[in-house]
């Protein structure tokens, strides 16, 4: 019975539910949220520390020319395997990988899940 007053007050107030797909402006992620990765090819040197440290093996290194990265390799990220743990962001000494706040990452095909920039 102790809750009775508070429960009845809820009837007159607006519900705390956000109607998500239609009212997206009220949904915001806190600082430090680990969403989709943003990869800056300018800063990358191809050291492959991110690929080595990734616990689920979501990062693979592919060949590219020596003008793009110093070591001639660049990472591609597979979001279907990614755990969003943030280890790649921590491992990268050159701040090339940053986890952004983008969270709407669902898709229908596995091929859409691979972030392959340039």
């Amino acid at each position, binding site marked *: 019975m102790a809750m009775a007053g508070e*429960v009845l007050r809820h009837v007159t107030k607006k*519900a*705390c539910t956000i109607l998500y797909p239609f009212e997206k402006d009220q949904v915001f992620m806190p600082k430090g949220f680990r969403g989709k990765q943003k990869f800056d090819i300018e800063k990358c040197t191809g050291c492959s520390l991110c690929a080595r440290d990734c616990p689920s093996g979501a990062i693979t290194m592919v060949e590219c020319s020596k003008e793009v990265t110093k070591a001639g390799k660049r990472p591609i990220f597979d979001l279907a395997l990614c755990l969003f743990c943030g280890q790649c962001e921590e491992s990268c000494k050159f701040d090339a990988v940053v986890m952004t706040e983008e969270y709407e990452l669902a898709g229908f095909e596995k091929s859409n899940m691979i972030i392959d920039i340039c």
Partner: protein
Amino acid sequence: MVTIVEIIISLVQIFIFPGLFFLGTLSLTYAWIDRKFFAKLQNRIGPLYTGWRGILQPLADFIKLLAKEDIVPDGVDRKMFTATPILALSVIITSLFFLPIYQFSGIASFTGDLIFVLFLMTAFVIIKLLAGWFSTNRFSLIGTERTAIQLLGYEIPILVAAITPAILTQSLTISEIVAVQAAGYVAGDFLLGFTRWAIFGPAAIAFGIFIACSIAELEKVPFDIPEAETEIVAGWYTEFSGKKYGMFIFGVHLEMVFLAGLAAALFLGGPSGPIPAAGSLGVITPWVVGLLQTIYFIIKTVVFVLVIAFIRAIFARVRIDQMVNISWRIFLPLALLSVLLVLLIGPLYLWF
């Protein structure tokens, strides 16, 4: 000699108003009201997208259940397993025909029908026991045993509480109980006609007992131990799926209407309410009176549904031993106390 017009009127009464179609719609609407109010109390929204503000949600759930696969477990007695949902639904619909909705007596009415209606209420719960027993599943068995213990506990208090207005109005016929309570409104007393309702007399405690035991009958929190989802899957209706489950769920919704209607008839004067006298609005036809009385009936039963939803929101589930404790040591003495009060003060009420 029964004329063809009477047959047609009877058929309309049974199937459309206030029969199957009206009661079905009412039960689904009350299920929606219950869910929406319960959600509002919990600071959330409830059903929203099916129809206007989600009003078609219970209907959508029912249609979905009708379309699902009907699995019959291996070792069950097929005849009884199939029969129990049908029996449950027919018992509850039969008992609904006795409730007064738009006039002071139901579609079916005979002397002493209160006892028959209370018996049908008990029979509905016994059929739930049969349903759990014929499922041959140990979780259903535990649920059935808990239903049986709960039934033993609250059945006597609810019967005593239901008989209290009968003692007060000196009649065991639902139509007469309603008529005695409605005498104030029939005589044209708008403002104070409601003071003749049994709830304002010495039967107030009995009304409280009736509500509490209705919650136990409907197996809602705090008395939903027989269907404790977190403990025994679903209790006595674990093995039912598809159409059979749909019939049970529809039966439970109808039971809510039934208990609400019974509480309204016994304690709140049924469909009685302020009705403009025959001369004041020109020709008051029976249609307008019937419509107004239906509206009053709906208002009273909706209040009952809202009270049950509110009690669901603020209490937690009781254990089965706490349930037995409450029913035998709190409900039963209070019910007997209300009978004592009615026997002592009742004649005064009738004299007024």
